[in-house]
């Protein structure tokens, strides 16, 4: 990334936040991509919150009598108390007799949490390291070499190896997916810092004797927010994808936890006869990632016009 282009980027961000403070929301709400992505995501959040009241049963319940049902078939399911319930398996059941519909609906929670958390975790660490690299010259070289190293290991391999080593839990999955994303955030923040720190207002603050941490927090950090939000959206999308891939490969969250990847992994063996075990969670996964990506495209076009032109 050339210094010149980042300079423009910083400038446009600055003018966006200073001059058009009020109209940013208006521009966002007028953008079709932001609207479509936002509405679909809002629906998914609603589904994940309302999961218990959507005609679902406990997603870990199973009943050997209701194995391998086709979508829409009626069957029985045994509750934890041991009583048998009449239940319609809207999306069929898996080879343990678990309700796919309930597992897919509850899976929404896991995917959204993982996506959001990966974005937050990688941004927090990325911003911290990026600010340090951009501001402390002696740290810049070594840190960026380490980041180059991390970036030359394919992200999914880092995630797979880390989860396998740490044993799959929600926290380790989030950390494992977030770590390979950190270098991208560090690079972005560092390049922004390098240009912003040359701005007259930062110079002015330095000559007034403002402490470094205060300059970073008050003058530099706010100017990195718009590009970071855009970046964060894309990290969220890839976080959701990678979590599903990990679960699908059997190295993610434990198989009894309802995630879309786990449902698909369970459906693999019987794909020929029961393709819906893979297709229903697959549709949810694709739609979710698509919505987040579309939202990200829209945010980029509105918040970060320079970056929009580059891609």
């Amino acid at each position, binding site marked *: 990334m050339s210094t010149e282009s980042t300079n423009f980027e910083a400038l446009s961000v600055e003018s966006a936040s200073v001059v058009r403070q009020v109209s940013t929301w208006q521009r966002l709400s007028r953008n079709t991509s932001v609207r479509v992505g936002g509405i679909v995501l809002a629906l998914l959040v609603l589904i994940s919150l309302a999961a218990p009241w959507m005609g679902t049963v406990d997603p870990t319940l199973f009943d050997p009598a209701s194995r391998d049902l086709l979508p829409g078939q009626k069957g029985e399911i045994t509750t934890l108390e041991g009583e048998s319930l009449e239940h319609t398996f809207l999306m069929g059941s898996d080879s343990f007799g678990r309700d796919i519909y309930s597992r897919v609906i509850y899976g929404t929670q896991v995917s959204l949490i993982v996506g959001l958390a990966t974005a937050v975790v990688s941004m927090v660490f990325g911003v911290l390291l990026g600010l340090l690299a951009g501001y402390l010259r002696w740290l810049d070289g070594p840190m960026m*070499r*380490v980041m*180059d*190293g*991390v970036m*030359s*290991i*394919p*992200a*999914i*391999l*880092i995630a*797979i*190896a*880390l989860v*396998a*080593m*740490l*044993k799959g839990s929600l926290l380790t999955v989030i950390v494992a997916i977030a770590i390979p994303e950190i270098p991208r955030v560090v690079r972005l923040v560092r390049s922004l810092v390098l240009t912003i720190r040359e701005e007259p207002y930062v110079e002015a603050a330095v000559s007034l004797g403002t402490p470094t941490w205060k300059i970073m927090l008050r003058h530099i950090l706010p100017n990195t927010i718009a590009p970071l939000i855009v970046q964060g959206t894309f990290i969220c*999308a890839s976080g959701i*994808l990678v979590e*599903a*891939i990990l679960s*699908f*490969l*059997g*190295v993610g969250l434990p198989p009894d936890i309802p995630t879309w990847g786990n449902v*698909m992994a369970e459906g*693999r063996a019987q*794909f*020929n006869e029961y*393709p819906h075990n*893979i*297709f229903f969670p*697959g549709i949810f*996964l*694709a739609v979710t*990632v*698509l919505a987040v*990506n*579309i939202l990200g*495209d829209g945010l980029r076009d509105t918040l970060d016009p320079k970056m929009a032109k*580059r*891609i």
Partner: protein
Amino acid sequence: MAVFLLRRLLSTIPVLLIVAVLVFLMLRLTPGDPAAVLAGDAASTEQIALIRESLGLDRSIPEQFAIWFGRMLTGDLGQSYYYKMDVTSLIAQRLEPTISLAIITIVIAVLVAVPLGVLAAWRHGGWLDRSLMGFSVMGFSVPVFVMAYLLIWLLSLKLGWLPVQGYERIAKGVGPWMRQLILPAITLSVIYIALIARVTRASVLETLGEDYIRTARAKGLPEVKVLLRHALANAAVPIATVIGIGIALLIGGVVVTESVYAIPGLGRLTVDAVLARDFPTIQGVILFFSFIYVMVNLLVDLSYVFFDPRIRY
């Protein structure tokens, strides 16, 4: 040129060194005792201790790294705990399917994506352009294994055109080899097509606005020549770059695709090694993939000279 070549070659060394340290630390500093895994559930504490000693796992971390790194330089990646053979030959054994899959995928992707990108840029804002952009967002969003099952369901189960799973060595004939690989390669190429088409479109669009394009058109050059010789040729550098960067995506995709299609390649090996907590194999495969990634991007950098005569090193 020679100086540049040397400097660019040398610049890969620190990156690879850091990768080596990271891979080593990542797998060694995490909880879990490979000796216990290797010994099995029935093993006694003494047996586990013995195995640990024979693997060198009882030494200090820096010592382990020094030994491991020294051996690695001579091409010795250690012994696989699970497959009971050395990792280097294990990787060599699994190389053919993965390289075949990767090459067919890249060929399909470039053949489809570059023309689409050029056409989309040429009729900027038209239906092809808009559907291509739509497709590329879709391509990034539909996970590779969902795509895989969709294609298996359609092309293998419903239409019966292609085999569902498996791999045939190229030694058994190009026909069967291709038949087995075409479906996985199409699956894997979707995301790659999305990426390359997007970049091709953007960079051709940019060159189409240049003065020399207007000149070329003004002197009555056929539009095909304008597009290919002037616009596309000048857009080659970013396209080459994105193919290089996309190798990371491809490697990630290989891991998933090989698992779905039961192809006995490196991706499958990675997953199996992780499930078996086979440290040396995991290390070896990750190092190997990272090495490939760094080398491909080195080649891409060098290819700039070929694509753009203005670039002189």
